[in-house]
């Protein structure tokens, strides 16, 4: 089973990298960009086909390592 974990900064946390990217996009003349926040994507392959146990394992992975929940949140998506 394939899953995608998306880790992003909590909305209250400043993201200077996102701001710098936002500025660069503006200076490139990309129209309509209002704001940019940077995050991370992890593509994970899991053994078996049990969605519930996969969700449990990925939550465990996020809480233990993939996200620092002081400043980040995460969500999990499954490929259909």
């Amino acid at each position, binding site marked *: 089973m394939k899953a995608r974990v998306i880790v992003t900064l909590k909305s209250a946390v400043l993201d200077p990298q996102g701001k710098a990217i936002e500025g660069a996009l503006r200076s490139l003349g990309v129209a309509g960009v209002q704001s940019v926040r940077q995050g991370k994507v992890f593509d994970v392959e899991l053994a078996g086909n049990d969605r519930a146990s996969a969700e449990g394992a990925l939550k465990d992975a996020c809480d233990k*390592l993939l996200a620092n929940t002081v400043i980040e949140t995460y969500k999990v998506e499954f490929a259909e």
Partner: protein
Amino acid sequence: MKPAVILFPGSNREQDAVRALRLVAGAKPQVVWHAEHELPPGTDLVVLPGGFSYGDYLRCGAIAARANIMEAVRAHAARGGLVLGICNGFQILCEAGLLPGVLVRNARLRFVCREVLLRVERADTAFTKAYRKSDLIRIPVAHGEGNYTADEGTITRLEHDGRIAFRYARRDGQIDQTDGPNGAINGIAGIYSEKFNVLGMMPHPENYIEPEIGPTDGRGLFESLAGALKAA
């Protein structure tokens, strides 16, 4: 005094820490590989040195914080044992949950490598007895992710409990909030654990110990530790 300096893949300041402990505290530190499960018998001080453990992959200190030896470090800290994390070591302590909060990218996105002025917030801990409260000391920093942050409740608690160890200061002793090296909240450069036995700090006291090289304001920290552990 029996210090153990933990070596992770990508640590690069471990020999500086060893040298400071030898020259200033007269100790014979052991370097301990991260894959070990136990600290050498009788270890009374653990030092997590600076560097770029695991190449800063994922987040600074995140992978090192989950190394085998960290369980032993956690147990040592829980027993009241002294732990000092410098730079990447501070990041590791935060990621391991031994200290609250997190060190994020410097506000101006630049790696800063220069001398800073630190204000010693209290001089009654095992790490700072050789200083006086409000002393201004010159110590170098070298980091890209030293911007200390935590939720409001944590900051309030740290401030209320006097757990700020050092702040970035100006010459007049005021907190350097706008011109600080990294944008850390309240100018925080280092913090203590609840029982004041764990200290994490971004600046490198181990690099200012020899007059041949420059200022020696870092000696006080190692003198304090030597004093604290001799008395114990």
